[in-house]
C-alpha cells in the first residue's frame, strides 16, 4: 500500500470515530452552555443509546422475522432516540433541577453519581458480559485503489453530518434555539425577558441526549459489541473534544470531535497505539496553552 493511500485510509478511520465523538461532544457543550455544568452522566446516556438500539434489533427481529433492513434501522433509531431523550429529561428533572442554585460543585458531583447509577443499572438489566450486536447492514465495502470504507462508515458520515447541519439550523433559526442561546449568554436577563428557563433547560437535555442516542446506536452497529462500561471512555474522549473545540461552542464541539478522532487515528497509525491517548491529551494541553478558550470558544472568564 502506497504511503499516501495508507494516509487516506488512516484519515477515514479517524474521521469515523471523530464523527461519533462530535455527536457526543455536542451534548456536553449544549448543557454546559445553558447550565455551566459538565454533565458527566452524558457518556452513560450514549451507552444507554447503544443498549436501546440493541434491544430494538432484538424486538424487531423477534416480532417480524425477516424484517427489511430499513425497518430494523428505523426502529432502532426511533427507540434509542426516544428512550434517551426521555432518560435525559428524567435525569435533569430528578438529579439536577432540585439543585438549581446550589454550588456548581454539588451538581457536578451529582452528575458523577448519576453516571455510576446508570452504569450499574445497565449492568443489572443487561448483564455484565459484552453483548454482541447482530450485523444488520450488508458488509459492502467501497474501494478506491487500496483505500476502502464500509457502507456503515458511509451511514455514520452522512447521518452525523446531517444531524450537525440540522442542529446548526435549529439553534440559529428556531425560537427554542434562540432561547437556548439567550440562556447561555445571560440566564437572568433571559428569564426577565419571559423565556421559560426550566423548559429550555429540559429541552437542551432532551436534544443533547437524542444526539448521544444516535451516536450510541451507530457505535453499537459499527463495533458489534457493547458493554455497560463503554460510556466512560467515549464520554471522556467526547468531553476532551468539547473542551478542545471550546466548551459552550457548538461548531467547536463538532470541530473538536473530528480533530480528536483524526489526531488519535494518525497517532495510533504512525507513532504508537500505546501512546495515542497521551498524544490526544498533549494536543489538548497545547491548544489550551495557545487558545485558552479552545479552538472556537469565546473568551468568557469565570467558567469552570
Amino acid at each position: 500500500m502506497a504511503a499516501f493511500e495508507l494516509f487516506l485510509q488512516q484519515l477515514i478511520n479517524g474521521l469515523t470515530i471523530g464523527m461519533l465523538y462530535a455527536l457526543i461532544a455536542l451534548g456536553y457543550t449544549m448543557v454546559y452552555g445553558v447550565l455551566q455544568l459538565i454533565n458527566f452522566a452524558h457518556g452513560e446516556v450514549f451507552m444507554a443509546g447503544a443498549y436501546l438500539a440493541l434491544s430494538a434489533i432484538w424486538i424487531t427481529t423477534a416480532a417480524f422475522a425477516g424484517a427489511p433492513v430499513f425497518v430494523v434501522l428505523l426502529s432502532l433509531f426511533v427507540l434509542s432516540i426516544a428512550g434517551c431523550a426521555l432518560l435525559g429529561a428524567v435525569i435533569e428533572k430528578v438529579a439536577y433541577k432540585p439543585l438549581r442554585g446550589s454550588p456548581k460543585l454539588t451538581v457536578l458531583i451529582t452528575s458523577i453519581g448519576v453516571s455510576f447509577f446508570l452504569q450499574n443499572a445497565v449492568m443489572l438489566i443487561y448483564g455484565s458480559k459484552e453483548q454482541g450486536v447482530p450485523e444488520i447492514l450488508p458488509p459492502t465495502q467501497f474501494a478506491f485503489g487500496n483505500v476502502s470504507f464500509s457502507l456503515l462508515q458511509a451511514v455514520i458520515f452522512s447521518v452525523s453530518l446531517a444531524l450537525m447541519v440540522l442542529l446548526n439550523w435549529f439553534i440559529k433559526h428556531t425560537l427554542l434555539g434562540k432561547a437556548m442561546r439567550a440562556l447561555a449568554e445571560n440566564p437572568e436577563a433571559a428569564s426577565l425577558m419571559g423565556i421559560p428557563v426550566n423548559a429550555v433547560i429540559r429541552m437542551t437535555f432532551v436534544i443533547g441526549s437524542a444526539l448521544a442516542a444516535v451516536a450510541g446506536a451507530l457505535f453499537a452497529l459499527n463495533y458489534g459489541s457493547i458493554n455497560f462500561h463503554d460510556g466512560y471512555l467515549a464520554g471522556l474522549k467526547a468531553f476532551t473534544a468539547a473542551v478542545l473545540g471550546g466548551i459552550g461552542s457548538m461548531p467547536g464541539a463538532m470541530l473538536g470531535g473530528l480533530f480528536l478522532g483524526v489526531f488519535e487515528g494518525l497517532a495510533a497509525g504512525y507513532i504508537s497505539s500505546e501512546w495515542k491517548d497521551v498524544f490526544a491529551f498533549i494536543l489538548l494541553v497545547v491548544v489550551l496553552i495557545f487558545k485558552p478558550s479552545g479552538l472556537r470558544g469565546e473568551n468568557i472568564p469565570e467558567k469552570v
Partner: protein
Amino acid sequence: MTRRALKAWLLSAVVFATLTAPVSAKEDEVSIGVVAPLTGDQAYIGIGVQQGAQLAVEDANVKGPVFGNTRLKLLSMDDQHNPTQAVLAANKLIANPDALGVVGHFNSSCSKAASSIYHEGRMAQVSPASTNPDISKQGFDTFFRVCATDDVQAPAAANFVASKLGLKKIAVLDDQTTYGKGLANEFEKKFKALGGTVLRHDGIKQGEKDFTPLLTKIKSLGPELIFYGGVYPEMALLIKQSRKMGLEVPWMGGDGIYDVSLIRLATPELSEGTYATMLGVDPHSLPEAKDFVARYEARYGEIGSFSAYAYDAANVLIEAIRRAGTRDRETVLNQVRSTKDFPGVLGVINFDAKGDAIGKSISIFKIENGKFKFIEEVKPEVANPPAG
C-alpha cells in the same frame, strides 16, 4: 433527630450490642475469602470465579464441620479489576480474625498488588487464574496458584506457531495489563529464540473499541499471524475489524481469549481459524470434572472459563484448614504448602517452592465451525520452568 431521640437511640443501641455480643462471638465459624472483579469491566469472569468458590464452600459444609464444631463461610469481595481496590480488599481480609485464607485474585495485576498484604498478614493466597510469572518471584511464601504460568503458556504457543505452523513473520499485540503484556513478552522472547521475526509489538488499551488505525498499519507490514496477549472482548473486536479491512491472517491468543463468548461476539464465520492456548484442559472433557460441571451448570448456568480453577483453589484451602484443625493462619499456611497430590477436578495439584502449580499442561485449541477444537496438549518442558 432531636438530641433526646438521639440519646435514646444511642442508649438502646449500646444495650442491644451488649446483649447480643456474647452470642455473636463466632467461635464456631471460620471463613475463606474470594476476591475477584465482581463489578466493572471484567465482572463476567469474576462472577464465575466467585461461584466456583461458593460451590466449594457449600460442598465442604455438606461434608461437615472443618474441625471441631467449626463451620466454613465464604467472604466474597470485589476488586473491580483494579489493583487499588485489590489492596483494600486484602487489608480488610487480613484484619478479619476469622479469615484464614483467600482464593484470588483473578487478574495478575491485582494478585501481584495484594500479595504483599497477604504476606504481611500471614494469610495463604491461592490464585485461580493469575498467570503472570513475576508474582511468584517476589519471594512471598504466602502465594500459591493452581494454574500454569505464562512462561509455560507463551513458549508453548510460540513453539506451536514456529514449529507446527511453520510461520516466520508475525506481529504481537497486548492490552498493556500485567497479564497481557507478560504473556505477549514471553511469547515474543520465545518466538525470536526460535528464529522468527516479530514485525511489531504494539499495545492497545482495554475498553477501547476502535483499533482500525493500528490494524491498518499492521496490514501494511504483511504478517503471517498476529498474537494477542489479552482477554476476549478486545480480541473479538480485533478479529472483526481486521477481517473487515481484508486482513485475513490467523489470530492467536492465550487463556484470556479462551471463552465461548469470543465466538459469539466475533461471529463463528470471522473467528474461524483463531488459535488459543488454554491452561490445563477443558473441564467438559475431563471425567473427574463431570460431576462438578453438571452441578455447577444446574445451579448457575454456563460454567465460566475459570470457575473450575476457583473450585480447585478453594478446595486446596479448605483441605488445608481441615488438616490444620485450628484457626491459626500460620498453621493453615504450612498445610497449604505441604499440599501433596491434591485431587482437583482439573487434575492433581502440587506446589513447587515458589508456590506455582507443578506439571500443569497447556492445551492448544483452534476455532472450527464455531467451536474451540482441541488440537494438542503441551506438557511442560521441565517439571518447573527455570526462573527468568
